[in-house]
C-alpha cells in the first residue's frame, strides 16, 4: 500500500519540508513493503491479542490522595496565565 506522507503528517500534527517528505516517503514505503509480510500469515478465526498476561477489569478503590499543587503542576510550562495553562484559541482559528 502507498503512504500519503503529507496527509499522514497533517494527521500527526507534524510539519515537514519538501526534503523531509521525500526522505520519509522512501523510508516509510520500504518499511511498509516489509510489513506486507503479515499478509502471508493465516489469521482466519484468530482473535486479536492486546493484553498478554490475562488480567481483566483491574480497578482500585475510589479514594482520594494528595496530588501535585497548582504551583508544581505549572512548574514546567512556558505559557501560563493567572495560575492556569494558557493555550491557543481553538474556536477562532481561520
Amino acid at each position: 500500500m502507498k503512504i500519503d506522507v503529507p496527509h499522514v503528517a497533517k494527521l500527526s500534527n507534524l510539519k515537514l519540508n519538501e526534503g523531509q517528505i521525500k526522505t520519509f516517503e522512501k523510508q516509510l514505503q520500504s518499511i511498509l513493503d516489509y510489513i506486507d509480510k503479515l499478509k502471508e500469515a493465516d489469521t482466519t478465526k484468530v482473535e486479536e491479542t492486546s493484553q498478554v498476561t490475562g488480567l481483566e477489569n483491574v480497578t482500585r478503590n475510589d479514594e482520594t490522595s494528595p496530588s501535585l499543587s497548582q504551583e508544581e503542576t505549572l512548574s514546567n510550562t512556558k505559557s501560563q496565565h493567572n495560575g492556569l495553562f494558557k493555550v491557543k484559541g481553538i474556536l477562532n482559528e481561520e
Partner: protein
Amino acid sequence: MKNNLTIKSALEKLRKKEISSLELTKTCFEEIEKKKNLNAFITVDEKGAIEQAKLADEKIKNGAGLPLLGIPIAVKDIFLTKGLKTTAGSKVLENYIPQYDATIVSKLKDAGAVIVGKTNLDAWAHGSSGENSDFGPTKNPFNPEYVPGGSSSGSAVAVASDMALAATGSDTGGSIRLPASFCNVVGLKPTYGRVSRYGIVAMSSSMDSIGHFTKTVEDSAIFLNVTAGGDSKDATTPPELVPNYEKDLKDLKKVRIGIPKEYFGKGLDKKVKEQVDKAISFFDKEKFEIIDVSLPHTEYAIACYYVIQPSEVSSNLARYDGIRYGEDRTVFGDEAVRRIMLGTFTLSSGYVDAYYKKAMKVRTLIKKDFDDVFKKVDVLISPVSPTLPWKLGKKADDPLAMYLSDALTVPANIAGIPGLSVPIGFVDELPVGMQILGNHFSEETLFNLGHFYETDNRT
C-alpha cells in the same frame, strides 16, 4: 581507585565497614569522568549522590539493613526523577524537571540506593544502537568505534565500565537485552507487568517492560527483589506476592532447555552461533535435557512489532504539544517522526484493519507459539543478537536494517514473556550474549539457570 564490585560483594564490604558508601560512590564518579568520551550519561548528579551516600553511611552505622543501602546505581533517563532533569534522550524534554518520581525510582531510593545520574539513550527509547539520542551517541566500552546497543545504551555502558554497580533500563523490543549483550553485562527484561511502568515515559504501552543491568545474575535477582510487585498506579502489575528471587538461586533445578530452530537460521553470524553453541554444550555436559523446538511464526515478529509499536508510539507521543511541559512538535528527531507517522498511518481510517488489527491477530499466533513450546520445555536458549556490535553510523541511514537487529528479541515483548541476557564470551574482542527466555512470571527459573552458568564459566 577503581571498584569492580558487584552489589552482593559491595553490600558485604559496606556491612563489615571495609568501605563506605561515600568512597564507593566517589570511585563511580572517577570512572564517569575518566570515560567521558563514552557519553554514557546525559545528567550526572554528583552533589545529590554524595548527600545520599553520606546518609546511607549514617544508616549503615545505625545498623539499618536495606536491600541496596549505599549502592551506587544509574537510572535510564526515561525514568522520572523528582527535581532531576529527565529528557527521554529527546530535545523535546531538554529542560523538563519532573515533579514526581517514577514508582521504581521511589522504590530504589527507599531501598537505600544512591543515584549517580541519568543515562543516555536513543530518544524516546527508539533504537537499537544508541545513535538516535539527541544528545550524541553512546560508545561501546570495548571499542569506542562500535555501538553499545540500544536503546538503554548508557545504562549498559555505565555498568560495564564500573560507573555504577547496576542501572535501570526499559525493554520494548530488546532495549535491555541487546545493549547488555553488546556490553558484556547481565540484562533482565521481566515479564510484562512484573515491574511498574508508572512515571516512565511511555513508548509502546502493551509491550514496555521495566528491567535492569547488573554485573552478575545474582545481582539481577537482588535488584528485582526491590523493583518487582504490584502498583496501584499501573493496572498491568498483578497484585500477587512476589517471590524472593535470591532465595532459591543456588538450589539448581535441572530444567528442560529448548533450542528454537528459527533463532539459529539465516542472518545469524557464524561466530556468534559458535559462542551460543558452546554455552548450550555446557548445559548438555551438565546433563540438562536439551530439546530442539520450533516457534513457526517467528518470521512475522518484526513485521508484527513494527505495526503495534509505532501505533502505540503515535498515540503516546501525541501528548507532546509544548503546552504543559517540553518543546513543541517541531523538535522531534527523525526516528520519532518516522514512528509517529508510521503508527498514525497504520491506525488511520481505511488502513486500521489491514495493518493494526492484522498485527494484533498475528500477535496471538506468536504468543501461542510460546504457550505451546512451554508445554514441552521450561526455558529457551538463543542468541540475543544475530550479529556482533556494528560500527557507529553503519545502519544510520537505513531504518529497516536497524529494525531487523531486534529480530531475536521482539518476540518476547510481543508475547510478554521474560528474557535474561547473559554474557558468554567474545568474538574479535567484542562481547556476545545468550538469551534465556521463559514463560510468564518465570524469572526465578531464568535466574537459577543463568546463575549456574555464570558460576561455572566466570572468566
